[in-house]
């Protein structure tokens, strides 16, 4: 097997709060291949965004830190890399787009300037060349009249257009990895579809690997080859998307999938009632305890779920689930 582009091993991220130190990411491992699209799925607060920020080296200063584990990019260790090196990588080899296109662009600079800035910082382009390139990039993310809109301010654009600008900015230096943190959550449905189309096409043309964070199962099914289901900072299930949707090996994944109407309709015709995952996510104090954190919401719960944290069970098709009852599902 060739060297993966990104390799995260036993990552543990601790957050220091008033209540004490909490492991918001606990023993997470995954790999990302060249040109691959992997999706992170899970409820709010399960640590998806924290994982993304830790790869970027942007954990909130003084609050969050990588306690143990490793993040290797091209075999280079990022957890111990200098701030200068991380800065070189950020926006250049690994870039990121965010959930809030309305507020993620700086209101007092033109979009052209904000795109050109990345090119000047990482590629050493001249002011003029960077500006021309910014116009080309706007055109590439399908903003009409890119040449005249490059001098616009963010407030003169719609939410969808701003997210396109963010994508143009992120792809400016042809990164190896693009992290998209819920890129369409704040947009309406038709614009969502357009953004996904755009991301898919760009990936085909540039070969950029994508880490997509979402809680939209439909988007995962459409976009990604592999998915990671996270729960309370831990890996619940990881594996090929079609295999997992076909036969989830973790009760949480199963619950998530049955929440989505159109996927359910394909799987079992006779079920009409939309289900939900009962209960709520555990509080931060529960994180890090040596037991299954999903147990309180799980109908398969047995004594061992409460006694000990479940180990990862691997299956032949590449699925891996952290559940005592994975085989039974």
């Amino acid at each position, binding site marked *: 097997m060739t060297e993966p582009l990104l390799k995260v091993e036993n990552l543990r991220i601790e957050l220091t709060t008033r209540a004490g130190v909490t492991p918001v990411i606990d023993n997470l491992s995954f790999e990302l291949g060249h040109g691959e699209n992997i999706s992170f799925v899970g409820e709010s607060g399960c640590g998806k965004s924290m994982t993304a920020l830790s790869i970027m080296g942007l954990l909130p200063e003084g609050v969050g830190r990588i306690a143990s584990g490793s993040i290797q990019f091209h075999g280079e260790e990022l957890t111990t890399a200098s701030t200068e090196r991380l800065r070189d990588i*950020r*926006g250049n080899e690994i870039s990121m787009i965010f959930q809030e296109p309305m507020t993620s662009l700086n209101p007092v600079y033109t979009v052209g300037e904000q795109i050109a800035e*990345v090119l000047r910082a990482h590629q050493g382009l001249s002011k003029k060349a960077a500006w021309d390139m910014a116009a080309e990039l706007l055109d590439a993310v399908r903003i009409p009249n890119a040449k005249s809109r490059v001098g616009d301010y963010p407030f003169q654009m719609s939410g969808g257009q701003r997210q396109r600008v963010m994508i143009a900015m992120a792809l400016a230096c042809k990164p190896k990895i693009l992290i998209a943190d819920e890129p369409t959550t704040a947009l309406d449905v038709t614009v969502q579809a357009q953004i996904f189309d755009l991301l898919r096409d760009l990936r085909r043309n540039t070969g950029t690997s994508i880490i997509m964070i979402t809680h939209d199962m439909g988007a995962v099914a459409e976009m990604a080859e592999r998915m990671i289901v996270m729960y309370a900072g831990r890996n619940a299930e990881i594996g090929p998307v079609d295999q997992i949707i076909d036969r989830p090996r973790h009760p949480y994944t199963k619950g998530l999938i049955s929440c989505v109407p159109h996927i359910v309709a394909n799987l079992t015709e006779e079920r009409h009632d939309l289900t939900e995952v009962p209960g709520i996510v555990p509080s931060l104090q529960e994180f890090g305890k040596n037991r299954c954190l999903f147990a309180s919401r799980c109908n398969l719960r047995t004594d061992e779920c409460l006694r000990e944290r479940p180990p990862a069970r691997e299956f032949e098709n590449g699925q891996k689930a952290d559940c005592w009852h994975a085989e039974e599902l």
Partner: protein
Amino acid sequence: MDGAVNFLRVTLIRVFYAVILLIAVLILNFSLMHMAPGDVADTIAQAAGGIDAEALEQIRREYGLDQPFLVQLGRYIGNVLRFDLGYSFFYSDKVTSLILSRLPATLLLVITAQLLALVVGVILGVFSARKPNGILSHFVTFLALFGYSAPVFWTGLLMLVIFSLMIPIFPVAGMRDVTIEGGFFAQAFDIARHLVLPMITLSSIFLALYSRLARATMMEVLGSDYVRTAKAKGLTNRQVVYKHALKNSLSPVITLAGLQLSAVVSGAVLVETVFSWPGLGTLAFQSILARDTPLILGILFFSALVVIVGNLLTDLALRLVDPRVGGKK
């Protein structure tokens, strides 16, 4: 091109409004002075040690004070529109030339104090926002409390005591030293030395205000989404703070500075009196004591002019800092 035309149009509209405002101020000032008991004739009578009623009437006729209110008002406004502010009987000189001879000193004091407060306030605010729990941050909080709670004349007296008795490095009264000879630079240096104490005294309150506000807005901006984007682009800390964050945190400070300009001008009256600074403030003080109505009105007119022009400039400055202000669509 389009923006420049628009900028000019907006500027002209603002100037038009400013003129209307100024005329309203004229009417208000004149009416208030008219309502106040006592007039020039009384003062002259007092100075002469008492005169008979007929002579009093004579004086009133000479100064046109026997005319109905509206006639006096109309005459006054007509004169002002012809740049004639009347004649000061107390100084036996034209009001306009009296004011113009004092105005530069006041402008120098007001503008330097305002600039000092703005520049130092923003610098302190930015530095302390970057380390909210650092020593500097606590110092700014203390400074703000002190500066805001100490009355300007008290600060002035404190300065007088410290710098005349304990550390006599700056002159404590007047604007220039008559014994100084030399060219332009020697004179300018002399004025600058005299300026230091009144300037610091006048700016203390506003420095406190601006540093507090700059600190608060800077902290808010540093936690914003677009600052996170700037970091994710791989920009240096310096670029993130001084390019992306600073420009955004300036507009509230500029707005406040514009609103406070009238307070600076009225603060100048006290400061000039404390430090015998030969500006409009001391002239205003003396003219009120002498009930020199034309002179008081003239000074009020010029103060209003300074504040209105200052607000106009603030408005235009805001447009330069924040593209969202103003009608560009």
